[in-house]
């Protein structure tokens, strides 16, 4: 009974933490289940995928009700994230635990460095007319009447769709192998490469995570890697934690939290690297 409650509490912590920092829970759940509960990495990835689907569905409902997510763009890109996740879900079973741990260590390091740098640099602003950035954005704008043009939203047009598709395949592969939502790839691709505003990119990515994770979660489920006794309390905790996190976000000093997150991620990256080296 105690273990069930501890899993629930761990899920709540991951949910609160992830929600406050704008992350899906996956990047926190996999190390938590692996190091705190001793789960094999592949089983932790499977449970994490279930958890990110729960948070994605819950947040996608809110984003679609507020008309923040771009349903048309999301639908096109998730064809590619789902294909990537299908490939990644199959490849994941060919990789050894040590390779998975090495890949996860690299991911954790990248996220920690990105988070640290994001906290230090000022917010990006829209390019001014006449600037080189503005000219570059104009050059990447879709042709009038093209399919790409129909995917845009209020005040923006979608650019460089093929690059977005390629980035989405990569996001799907990363999600399936490492049990994360893939937002850490999708949001920068949509925002920086495709010219989608950050708020819309975040909402659309959140919506897409459901299909991305489901594509590989069914593979883990049918191959007997999803343990409902562990997935149940963890998913429930993450769901509750995400709700709590969204309610207290305005009262928390995110700068301090970000710093703490960076430290936790680096610690986890070192642990994963040690696991990868087989020590």
């Amino acid at each position, binding site marked *: 009974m105690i273990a069930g409650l501890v899993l629930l509490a761990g899920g709540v912590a991951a949910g609160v933490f992830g929600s406050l920092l704008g992350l899906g829970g996956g990047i926190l759940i996999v190390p938590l289940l692996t190091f705190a509960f001793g789960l094999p990495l592949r089983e932790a990835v499977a449970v994490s995928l279930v958890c990110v689907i729960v948070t994605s569905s819950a947040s996608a409902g809110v984003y679609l009700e507020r008309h923040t997510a771009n349903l*048309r763009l999301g639908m096109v890109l998730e064809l590619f994230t789902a294909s990537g996740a299908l490939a990644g879900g199959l490849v994941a079973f060919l990789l050894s635990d040590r390779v998975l741990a090495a890949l996860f260590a690299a991911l954790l390091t990248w996220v920690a460095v990105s988070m640290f740098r994001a906290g230090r640099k000022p917010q990006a602003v829209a390019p001014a007319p006449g600037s080189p950035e503005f000219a570059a954005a104009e050059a990447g704008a879709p042709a009038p009447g093209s399919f790409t043009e129909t995917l845009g939203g209020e005040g923006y047009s979608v650019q460089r769709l093929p690059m977005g598709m390629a980035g989405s395949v990569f996001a799907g592969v990363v999600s399936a192998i490492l049990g994360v939502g893939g937002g850490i790839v999708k949001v920068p691709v949509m925002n920086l490469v495709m010219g989608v505003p950050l708020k819309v990119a975040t909402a659309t990515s959140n919506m897409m995570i459901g299909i991305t994770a489901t594509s590989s979660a069914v593979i883990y489920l049918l191959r007997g890697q999803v343990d409902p006794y562990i997935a149940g309390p963890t998913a429930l905790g993450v769901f509750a934690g995400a709700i709590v996190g969204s309610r207290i976000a305005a009262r928390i000093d995110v700068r301090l939290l970000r710093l703490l997150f960076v430290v936790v991620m680096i610690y986890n990256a070192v642990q994963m690297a040690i696991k990868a080296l087989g020590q």
Partner: protein
Amino acid sequence: MSLAATPGTPGAGADTARRLESAIARLLTLGTRAAVVFILAGVVMMLAHGIDPLTAAIPAFSLSSIPGDLVALRPAGFLWSGLLVVMAMPVARVVVSGVGFFAAGNRRLALVSLLVVLVLSAAVLAAQAMGG
């Protein structure tokens, strides 16, 4: 491409798009609540039965045994039901979107929705072929 109108653009296409988004939002909200209720029931029963999730054997996943487990109030039945609803929600969203796109005359996006469902079906078939 009526449903391809940009969000916020005045006109019937934008209204249709907003109605579709609201319908999908309701579906996701209700589905998530249903999943949470099933999982919560399963976790409470699991705790009541004294099952240690870290040492208990993973109950085999079998669609045909879930109804029996639910009737017998076995925790695994409720947990599997909740997890299946969780995984069904994104698929349901794609299906409803596809139907909405098709009804609005946007055949290209309807086709994309169909392709997404086919990719998911391929994932199921691939897992079964691998000995799932």
